[in-house]
């Protein structure tokens, strides 16, 4: 009985142990499966993070350039351009492997781009680059900010250089103005220079130029040339608020020039040859009528300067009495007028600017010793960004040689160029010479026509000259003094609306 119960007990224990064992095995197996499945789930983000990390460290900008597209690696790891996503002219999208040969649809300059590196992709047949795929699977699409400006049609940006502001402060733009000299066979000396004064003029004049002041359309800019020793009316004089009248018939018997800036004749008079002046114009009294006309003027002026013939026969003077700025043709843009003409005309057998006066013969052949150089420093040109410049300008020209090229050699009158203000001068320039300019006018009676010239200017690259800031500059010259009776023409040269279009360096 005892043994039976013991054996029963043993059998029960064995079954229980077997059951426990079986449960333990099942539980262990289940736990293993569960835990391993859990581990699987918890491990899965890692490669995602790695991809994400790679993706985040790669930054690529794709934008259009003149020669196709640029791909700029702005990230911190190198990228390898594996595929290009292209759109054909019909609008369908294709994925192509990046090629380097000329037979591929698109040619990438470089397929592996280091951080900060740039590659150019050129596509033919109207294919447009939409995106790139890197070897790591990163997809980069075009940057809208870079692309959008190219997608909207817009006008070519042009910047005016000879603005009213520049014209009214021209002295600040003339290079080394204190050293520039105009030489003459009968030199001028300054007799009077007053600012902000009343002015009254009664004088003979051979040439009068009246412009609207660049500072205000209600004010005038005036240049008067003439000689005082003349006929019945020998009482030429100029008087300003500051002092006693200057007798031009005596002091300026052989020649004088009067320049007035910002003249207001409100309530006063302004008459040339007996007629009231109401609009701008050039009054070529001697050229057209063979004799001087009477100028009568009273008002207030921003500045009045009077230059008269000096005592030495040949001398040079500052350029101030030879130029004047203001609007001549009423279009709102100021002209820069450079004038060496004083009296009459001539040909190869006689000196052009010559008058027999009661005080003796005045030969007033003026010429620039070096060019009057205007540097437009408001518009810097960075040669790392720009490769060419187109400078457009409207010009007028008149000169005093009746027989044109027979009287004068072919000398340079105007030069336009890309200018290095820090020493090396013009790095590229083009010129207008007398043989061209003399075609644009009639000598007598005086007529001239405006012509518009566009100049393409080459901007030297940083590889050639280093990174530089250049400016547009213009040289204005009268290269003709007098040589016997030839090479003696005098000029009226007008330049208006100089404007700049820059071409991107690509």
């Amino acid at each position, binding site marked *: 009985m005892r043994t039976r119960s013991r054996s029963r007990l043993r*059998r029960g224990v064995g*079954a229980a142990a077997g*059951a*426990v064992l079986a449960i333990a095995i099942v539980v262990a197996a*289940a736990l293993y499966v569960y835990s391993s499945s859990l581990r699987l789930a918890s491990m899965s983000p890692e490669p995602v993070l790695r991809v994400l990390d790679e993706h985040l460290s790669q930054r690529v900008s794709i934008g259009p350039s003149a020669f196709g597209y640029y791909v700029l690696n702005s990230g911190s790891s190198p990228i390898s351009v594996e595929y290009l996503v292209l759109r054909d002219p019909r609008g369908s999208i294709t994925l192509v492997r990046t090629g380097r040969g000329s037979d591929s649809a698109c040619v990438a300059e470089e397929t592996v781009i280091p951080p900060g590196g740039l590659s150019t992709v*050129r596509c*033919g047949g109207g294919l447009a680059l939409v995106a790139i795929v890197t070897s790591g699977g990163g997809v980069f699409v075009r940057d809208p900010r870079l692309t959008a400006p190219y997608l909207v049609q817009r006008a070519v*940006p042009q910047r005016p250089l000879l603005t009213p502001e520049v014209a009214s402060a021209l002295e600040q733009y003339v290079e080394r103005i204190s050293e520039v000299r105009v030489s003459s066979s009968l030199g001028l000396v300054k007799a009077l220079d007053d600012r902000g004064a009343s002015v009254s003029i009664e004088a003979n004049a051979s040439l009068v130029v009246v412009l609207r002041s660049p500072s205000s359309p209600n004010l005038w800019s005036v240049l008067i040339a003439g000689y005082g020793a003349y006929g019945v009316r020998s009482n030429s004089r100029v008087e300003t608020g500051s002092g006693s009248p200057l007798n031009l018939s005596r002091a300026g018997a052989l020649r004088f020039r009067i320049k007035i800036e910002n003249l207001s004749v409100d309530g006063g008079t302004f008459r040339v040859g007996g007629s009231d002046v109401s609009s701008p114009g050039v009054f070529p009294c001697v050229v057209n009528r063979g004799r001087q006309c009477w100028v009568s003027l009273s008002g207030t002026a921003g500045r009045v300067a009077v230059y008269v013939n000096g005592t030495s026969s040949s001398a040079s003077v500052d350029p101030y009495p030879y130029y004047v700025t203001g609007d001549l043709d009423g279009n709102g843009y100021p002209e820069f007028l450079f004038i060496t003409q004083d009296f009459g005309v001539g040909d190869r057998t006689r000196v052009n600017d010559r008058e027999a006066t009661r005080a003796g013969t005045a030969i007033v052949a003026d010429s620039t010793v070096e060019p009057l150089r205007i540097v437009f420093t408001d518009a810097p040109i960075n040669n790392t960004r720009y490769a060419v410049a187109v400078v457009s300008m409207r010009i007028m020209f008149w000169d005093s040689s009746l027989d044109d090229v027979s009287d004068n050699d072919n000398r340079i009158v105007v030069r336009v160029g890309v200018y290095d203000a820090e020493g090396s001068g013009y790095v590229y320039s083009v010129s207008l010479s007398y043989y061209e300019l003399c075609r644009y006018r009639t000598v007598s009676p005086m007529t001239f026509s405006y012509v518009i010239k*566009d100049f393409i200017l080459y901007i030297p690259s940083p590889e050639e000259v280093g990174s530089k800031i250049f400016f547009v500059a213009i040289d204005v010259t009268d290269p003709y003094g007098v040589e016997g009776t030839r090479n003696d023409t005098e000029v009226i040269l007008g330049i208006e609306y100089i404007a700049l279009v820059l071409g*991107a360096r690509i």
Partner: protein
Amino acid sequence: MRRGVSTLLAAVLVSAVALAAFASLYTMSQRRVSTSIAGLDRLADYVHQHEVTRLVIVVAGGVARVRNLGNKPVELEYLVLLRSDRSLRAVKLTEGDPCWRLDVDGSCEVDLEDGVPVVAVTRSGIIVYPERVELLIPPSEAALVIPVTFFFGNIVEFAEEFGVDPGLVAKPYPGRSDKRGINGTTVLLLPRGRESEYFNELVSTVCPGSKDGRTPFGVLVVGYDPSWVIESRDSPGRPPRFSILFAGPRMPGEKICTSREALPLTQQGFRVKILNFTGTVRIYDSGGRVLACSSSIRGECGSVRSALGVWYYGIGLGWTVYFHGIAGYFAYYQRAPSGRGQQASYEPYLFLGDIDGNGVVDLLLVTEDAYYGSYTKIDDSEGNEEDLVDYSTEPLRLKLLGVGRALGYPDGSIDGGRYAGIFLYINLLFHDNSHPDEDQLRDVDRTDWVLRVLLVDELGNEYVVREYRYQEICNYHKTLVRDVGRDNYFVKISQSIYLPIPSSGRYWIAIELADPYYYEKRGSYYVNDADLSVGIEIIGVLPLAR
């Protein structure tokens, strides 16, 4: 036994329950895992869709333009507009609305009075926040001006880049019929087997027995060699090398020498091309004074003016030239009677080099050789017996392939559908030998072009846009200059030319150069007999979008 069975049964039961519990636990956890992965997928998909759906709002003028810059078409369901009173309005789009479907690069316009789009919802439910780009054009911002220049080491490279017919620039070896372009009473040839081409050879006017080591010349062109100009763009400061073209009539007793032999200049006329020249060039006036000098050797020339440029009629003015140095290439062309189909090509007449020292290579076509004249004589002859007149039998056509390439077409053409026009800005130069200038229109009265701009279509049809005829362009130059330095043969002429482009098809811009004049005997006069120099320095091309 029965109890044993029941215990086993109980154990199985318990383990089954435990297994079921674990199984359910496992499957539940699996479901959670798969659920989260599926969610992640959708999220990733959304993010991807969001990423590739790129819309941009370009505000310019009175309209806001919604443009699809993504890589696949987008169908929009809603546009949310921000109105001027700062309120938002969602507009449901229906089929037919311009913004309903935007193809890649497609766009639609929204009047700014209705509001600026700030949010778009695609039909697949993606919410897109378009980037807004305001277009403000700063002053002096750049335009696209494509420069066309002549930075080529030699005529072959130049011809290839401009698609010049190889026959027009073939070296003029005698007896070969592939060379064409220029003809005259005599033509310039390179007699093979008579030592007319040399490489890396000494070339000099200093010959054994010569009295002053100089020789007269008809026309002399001196420029910096293009290879040196190109080289100094990258590494400035190297001693300059020169490119020289030297033409003349029969000059008995005169010669030039190489290291091995003397070449007498006694034929009916000659030309010498000296390329990549390291040495010195000096020009003397009739009194034996140095007029100009350029040298590879620093300090060799002192303060004398540079010899760069074109020097005309040395033989008439008593001017002479001295040169001595090593030429990378040196060709000695000799005149031979034309006829029997014997023509020359443009090759002896073309010059590449920087003739004004401004760092930009000039391309010149020079048919002038030695003399000037008016209607009373053949211009390029001393006394009408032996003339050196050359003329074009067909124009030299340069295709501006670089323009089309810069605009994305490897074949160099321009798409009329995309570009309405082209502005060309050309800096050119011109000179001829009709003297005096006052009589040049009497001497040359046939109006013919020397430079023209044209469009060529895919079928080869030509559309001439602008011709520079002799009677226009002759006014810009002075034939005879004695006062070197103050007087000028020419200055660069800047010309702007507008080329309208037809609205469909593809077009190549071409520039053609030609010397149209041989000579015409009219009574005792000789007219229409000018020889000329015409050149281009740089062309700027401004494309105008349609």
